């Protein structure tokens, strides 16, 4: 009931914002005076796949159930304080149904500033810096394409990695050669998520995960925009709480140390972006889900700006859920796993992507084609393991607007 109310609320907001976008009159003024600002974004995508389901389509038809909407407020009463918050509603087929939620909300206090160096503290629900794009992955304009490179930015565990209540210390230093920014966060991930159970327990079980003390850090060096390079490092932790009404699984722990290296070269017309990451999946004390292996994820993308606000890109994106079993044969040879319908190709995905984008003022129109071998990043909530087709194609179209 609560969900349906908030869904109606978010759909109404969506209508208002799209309506105002069409009329070219933003509903909110961006500058509200006295250090107060408002910004927002909205996007609607269309998806068609040759096989498998993405964002609510049914394989042979066109799906419209992928959209995002967010609005934020920030207030800087003086240079040393910043208070920011953003609400978000997101629709993605059966995995996200437009529930309105707090995306982030925190207080930022500058502790030290001497011109070229600042150090500060953030307290509240904070976006997790992870790779180049995680903090703004729901804002279409800031993504490297319509969907994120799924290897490094797996949508099925996005809520887990996106933002979390905690505290972080951050800093910024300006050098002659560039800008160094860093952040270290202590957090407790939000893990009340069906997709997470599919990814880490292989099924939607009656119990639930609970976030444990975790940490994430990032250092990013930006050489005048020409080169950007970074490392993100951390360890996420959670426990499974089985349902007292009966559960096949027992209480266990997941420990997920993770790192990603990021590199980008920018020129006037080209951006070359590559990221490589690994995450250790260490699960113990379970009946069935115990494991200890590393995932491997990387992508490389070349983006060309053609002028007149047109750009195109090509990307290769590869995800292996177990780097020592890249073909998935080892996984699928387990009789219990095979009995549940899992195929070897559910353990990897290699995705070639071609995309194009045209910006008209604050509106971005995009199209992209995917040719995928493997189903590792498909939502299991929409695709039963036995029904997943190994080689498949996808067309995505998107209109996005921001203010």
């Amino acid at each position, binding site marked *: 009931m609560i969900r349906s109310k908030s869904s109606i609320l978010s759909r109404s907001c969506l209508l208002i914002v799209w309506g105002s976008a069409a009329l070219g009159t933003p509903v909110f003024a961006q500058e509200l005076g006295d250090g107060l600002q408002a910004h927002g974004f909205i996007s609607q995508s269309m998806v068609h796949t040759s096989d498998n389901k993405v964002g609510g389509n049914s394989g042979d038809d066109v799906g419209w159930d992928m959209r995002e909407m967010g609005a934020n407020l920030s207030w*800087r009463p003086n240079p*040393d304080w910043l208070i920011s918050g953003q609400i978000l509603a997101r629709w993605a087929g059966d995995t996200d149904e437009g529930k309105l939620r707090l995306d982030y909300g925190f207080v930022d206090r500058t502790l030290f500033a001497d*011109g*070229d160096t600042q150090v500060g503290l953030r307290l509240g629900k904070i976006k997790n810096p992870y790779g180049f794009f995680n*903090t703004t992955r729901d804002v279409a304009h*800031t993504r490297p394409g319509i969907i994120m490179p799924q290897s490094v930015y797996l949508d099925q565990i996005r809520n887990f990695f996106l933002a979390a209540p905690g505290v972080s210390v951050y800093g910024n230093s*300006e050098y002659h050669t560039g800008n160094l920014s860093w952040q270290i966060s202590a957090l407790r991930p939000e893990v009340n998520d069906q997709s997470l159970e599919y990814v880490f327990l292989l099924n939607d079980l009656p119990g639930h995960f609970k976030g444990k003390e975790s940490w994430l850090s990032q250092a990013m060096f930006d050489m005048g925009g020409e080169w950007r390079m970074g490392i993100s490092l951390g360890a996420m932790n959670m426990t499974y709480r089985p349902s007292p009404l009966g559960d096949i699984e027992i209480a266990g722990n997941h420990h997920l140390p993770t790192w990603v290296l990021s590199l980008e070269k920018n020129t006037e017309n080209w951006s070359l972006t590559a990221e490589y990451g690994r995450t250790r999946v260490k699960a113990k004390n379970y009946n069935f889900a115990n494991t200890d292996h590393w995932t491997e994820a990387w992508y490389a993308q070349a983006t060309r700006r053609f002028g007149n606000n047109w750009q195109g890109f090509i990307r290769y994106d590869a995800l292996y859920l177990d780097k020592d079993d890249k073909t998935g044969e080892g996984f699928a040879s387990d009789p219990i796993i095979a009995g549940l319908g899992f195929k070897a190709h559910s353990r990897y995905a290699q995705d070639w992507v071609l995309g194009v984008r045209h910006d008209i003022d604050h509106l971005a129109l995009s199209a992209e084609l995917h040719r995928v071998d493997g189903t590792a990043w498909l939502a299991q909530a929409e695709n039963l393991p036995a029904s997943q087709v190994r080689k498949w194609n996808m067309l995505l179209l998107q209109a996005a607007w921001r203010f």
Partner: protein
Amino acid sequence: MTGRLLNLLLSRRPAGAPLLLLFVLLLSSATASAVDIIAHRGVSLNAMSLASARAIFGMRQVKWPDGTSIKVFVLPDESPTHGAACKERLNLFPYQLRQSWDRLVYSGMAQAPSEVSSEEELMNKVAATPGAIGYVRKVRSNDPVKIINIE
């Protein structure tokens, strides 16, 4: 552009090449300083490093050395003056500034600069707002702002 012009001139008038070269060099140095970084007259600085200018226009640095707030005014991304300010003064491309603003603004980590629609409006805002910084194509001697040199 300059190279093509140079080739054209040199191929037609080989005898005048040194003079033309000088002319072209003067022309190109004149276009390189076509945009001035301006600030409110109450701002105590007269010059800043390129690193500081990038930090300020990148919205990472929000206060002047005396502790007062910096207020950044910019023109729309498509404005030729904005493009010239980015490339000539900050040594950045406009898309890079836009990307770093968006990353900060939509994660709540900083605020966006104030966008105005014309150079005239930008000049008026910088003149009227204590702590303000911006840029215009040409500052006249009676304009009520100060020029900040980027070193």
